[in-house]
């Protein structure tokens, strides 16, 4: 039964041997390829699996004023996060935490989703947590597995109580999806804060620094699993500090002076273009933005108080009113269309074609030459003067002083305003739609003319330096050389004299704002800009000298009334405040 006389043929045994050896050879070759030939590749793959880079955040650069006082620094707030995988009873734990934090469970869940980066990584559910709350959580940590707390760097404003500088410094905002894709190369990640306005926005790449990494070993589920010893961490590089031209004391005084108004003021060092103070009111506390703000809250903030976020100093566009008469006066003098001897008779009103143009002084100024015209701001004088020139001549001078174009200051969203020229008028009204009558309004700073407070302060600075046209700046000195505007010396001298008289001679529109101190020379021009939205805007522009120092100033109070009674006193106060405080403070900024 079992015996068989036929043996297995030798060739079948050999075939079997060959097949076995061949199969093993295939395995051997493939194993050799994997383990010897492609060893590096798979070694890297295995490392890639287990090694997770963890971001270390770079502190944002500080912002200092010209004296080295810190305007914006960094501090940290406590945050509470949950690791979803370690929560044993999500509902109960969240409601317990919600009780301590006084934040609805719904919000916590929303945040958990928003900041969630997987089951095994912490998701931030609350920030700006008080120390007392932390100690509550610490006390109950046995009941709250998976709830952890850590810190988060935020902006901190040490001088906040005296200086807001909210529009100037700008606020930070949590990065949005569009920024994540837009700002390539900066290594932004979700949850980062980026500059959203002001200097924080403009100098974002200067301030931000570079994130670092350290390496953590993780298992297949992404859980932490020990240290990685064979890789050097890459340290974070802190952001660069920013040194401003701002004089904190002055900034604080201007803010205080304008408090409660819708107003703006820009003070420049007329010789260097350094911005000493830039204020826009109303403003807000930057620390409110450093804290956590719900989306809805942010929307409310933005909608109901849109004004708040507006930096009037560079984005507010106003008719300049009578302050602009200086441009018309200079054009007249330079083009030899007027001089001290040329006079007009002001009766309070002026008939041009079928229209009546009025002076602000109903009873009229009587006989007016250029000196009285500027000092007392007589409209009629300038109505007549402008008719001796055309729009091209007027625009040439307005353009020289930078009206209609941006100053180029290192801030975002600066507006250029409007200085109308022939082209502009033709485009707006049609070639025959406007007459030289339209110029009458422009001559006194009304009509289509729109300027920013910064442009006005720069204008005053050019006048103060008799033609040195320097771009205003906050943190980086402009590269371009100052353009010198060359007028006749007599023109400059007369303009200075007239602006001096506006303040210092009885009858001048700002006579009540004169400064008693003889060491301070104060020059200026008021403006009262009619506007369709109620009360006139009160303007003052001017400059002041003390010793070797010269500052220029512009002040506008929206719907404030007349420049002489509202804006000039403010400017006077600011000038006195600056010179009394800044003896021996001629700091040159690196």
């Amino acid at each position, binding site marked *: *039964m*079992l*015996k*068989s006389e*036929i*043996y*297995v*043929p*030798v060739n*079948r*045994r050999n*075939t*079997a*041997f060959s097949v*076995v*050896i061949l*199969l*093993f050879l*295939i*395995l*051997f070759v*493939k*194993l*050799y390829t*994997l*383990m*010897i030939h*492609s*060893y590096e*590749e*798979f*070694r890297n*793959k*295995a*490392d890639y*699996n*287990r090694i997770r880079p963890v971001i270390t955040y770079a502190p944002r650069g500080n912002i200092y004023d010209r004296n080295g006082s810190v305007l914006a620094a960094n501090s940290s707030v406590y945050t509470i996060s949950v690791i979803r995988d370690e929560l044993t009873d999500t509902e109960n734990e969240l409601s317990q935490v919600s009780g301590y934090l006084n934040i609805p469970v719904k919000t916590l869940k929303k945040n958990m989703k928003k900041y969630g980066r997987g089951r095994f990584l912490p998701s931030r559910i609350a920030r700006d947590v008080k120390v007392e709350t932390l100690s509550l959580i610490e006390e109950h940590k046995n009941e709250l597995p998976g709830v952890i707390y850590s810190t988060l760097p935020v902006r901190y404003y040490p001088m906040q109580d005296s200086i807001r500088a909210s529009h100037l410094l700008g606020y930070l905002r949590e990065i949005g999806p569009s920024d994540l894709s837009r700002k390539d190369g900066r290594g932004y990640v979700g949850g980062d804060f980026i500059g959203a306005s002001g200097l924080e926005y403009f100098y974002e790449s200067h301030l931000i620094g570079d994130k670092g990494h350290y390496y953590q*070993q*993780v*298992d*297949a*589920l992404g859980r932490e*699993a020990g240290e990685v010893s064979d890789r050097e961490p890459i340290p974070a590089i802190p952001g660069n500090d920013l040194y401003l031209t701002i004089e904190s004391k002055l900034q604080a005084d201007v803010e205080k002076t304008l408090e409660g108004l819708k107003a703006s003021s820009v003070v420049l060092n007329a010789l260097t273009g350094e911005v000493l103070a830039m204020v826009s009111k109303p403003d807000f506390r930057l620390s409110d933005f450093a804290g956590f703000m719900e989306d809805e809250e942010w929307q409310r903030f933005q909608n109901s108080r849109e004004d708040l976020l507006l930096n009037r100093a560079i984005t507010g566009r106003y008719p300049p009113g009578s302050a602009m008469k200086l441009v018309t006066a200079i054009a007249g003098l330079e083009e030899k269309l007027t001089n001290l001897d040329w006079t007009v008779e002001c009766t309070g009103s002026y008939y041009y074609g079928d229209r009546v143009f009025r002076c602000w002084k109903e009873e009229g100024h009587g006989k007016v030459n250029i000196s009285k015209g500027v000092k007392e701001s007589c409209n009629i004088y300038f109505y007549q003067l402008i008719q001796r020139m055309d729009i091209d001549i007027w625009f040439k001078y307005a353009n020289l002083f930078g009206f209609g174009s941006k100053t180029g200051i290192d801030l975002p969203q600066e507006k250029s305003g409007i200085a109308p020229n022939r082209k502009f008028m033709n485009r707006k009204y049609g070639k025959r739609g406007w007459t030289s009558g339209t110029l009458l309004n422009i001559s006194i700073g009304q009509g289509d003319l729109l300027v920013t407070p910064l442009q006005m302060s720069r204008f005053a600075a050019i006048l103060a330096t008799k033609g040195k046209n320097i771009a205003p700046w906050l943190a980086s000195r402009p590269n371009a050389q100052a353009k010198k505007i060359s007028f006749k010396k007599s023109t400059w001298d007369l303009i200075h004299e007239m602006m001096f008289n506006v303040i210092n001679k009885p009858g001048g529109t700002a006579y009540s704002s004169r400064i008693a101190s003889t060491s301070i020379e104060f020059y200026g021009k008021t403006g009262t800009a009619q506007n369709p939205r109620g009360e006139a805007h009160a303007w003052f522009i001017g400059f002041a000298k003390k010793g070797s120092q010269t500052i220029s100033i512009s002040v506008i109070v929206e719907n404030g009334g007349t420049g002489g009674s509202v804006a000039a006193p403010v400017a006077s106060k600011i000038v006195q405040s600056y010179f009394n405080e800044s003896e021996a403070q001629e700091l040159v900024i690196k």
Partner: protein
Amino acid sequence: MINLIGKLRVAPLRWLFLAMVLNGFGLLALYSITTHSGELLLSSRFFKHLFWMIPSLFAFLFFLGISKRIIHKYSYAALSVMMVLIIVPFGMSSIAGTHRWISLGGVSFQPVEVLKWVLIISLARYLSDHNLEIQRLRSVVIPTVATLVPVAFVINQPDLGSAVLLLMLSFPLLYWVGARPLHLFMLIAPLVSILTAFSLITFTIWIAAVGIVLYFSRTDLRIGLANFFGNVFLGLLTPVLWGKLQPYQQERVLVMLDPTRDPHGAAYQVIQSQTAIGSGGFSGKGLGNGTQTHLKFLPEQETDFIFSVIGEELGFVVVCLILALFLYLILDIIKVAFQSSERFSSLIIFGVGILFLFHVFVNIGMTINLLPVKGLPLPFISYGGSFLVSCYAMLGLAMNMSLEGEE
């Protein structure tokens, strides 16, 4: 008992030694996997595997000691019992989504592991009983068709790896016993016809090849034509049937044939396994230092992918050593099978060798992305009680069969 000691004296004990060495590597890998921060629990799979060696050695001694006559006599009965046992899991609740295990009082075992070698014994008996008719096609067709019955159940467990193994077992045995290559060709041809039917070019080439082979083999014209047109018909029918399946059903079939189609399942596993082995390099990362293993990137590391653990931690040198041990064991088994003067014994020894070969090639091939089929463990090394007992039982069986003229 005396008989057993006598047998032990003359049996090729080197096989047992090889098996124990391989088993040791399995234990080493399990020791590494189950040790956590220097702690090894008594309930760990390392100790479980160690414990399973006791019944394994009993099984080995039992199948070494048992009389060949008894094995021959009860082989068909044993096959019948196993056919029933293979169906039993379908009546029980599924384990891990499959019907592979029979659970009794906390111990589960996979009947298919035993079925594999019981089938070898039965095929050996059939082929040795019908050895004079082996040149006839009928003697080739019957055992092949007989194996299709358990295959149908195993494929539904589902356990494609074991099903393919069972299906393929008869071919090497038939070849070993002297079946005409033409007949083997005719058996395998329909399968190839189905697989090539999806591309017109490959199918045309294949059918042409079938025609040429049949023509030159000078087979009976009727059989030749029937075979030829049978294959053509099958090839034409397949796309039609395939088209009638719903897309998700097609996908299910495709994933079963090629698990790497499922990127979250087998594709992930194979990538991690390759990464583990490749990153082991020449000398490995050291026992207990495999990051793929210990950080759980490597799936099924105690069973299907235990070879990847060895590759990662012990490196190319040990991997080659294990390959060499397996190669020597299998070649030696085939050599002994060849030397056997009894057809029944020779077939069983050869079958056991082929079974080991199949397991080793498919398992290692899977871990290095050579073969898509999964689910076959590595003999003596993979964790798993029924399989370890089976392996030692087969070894005892083969050694028993290698002994001449004792009875």
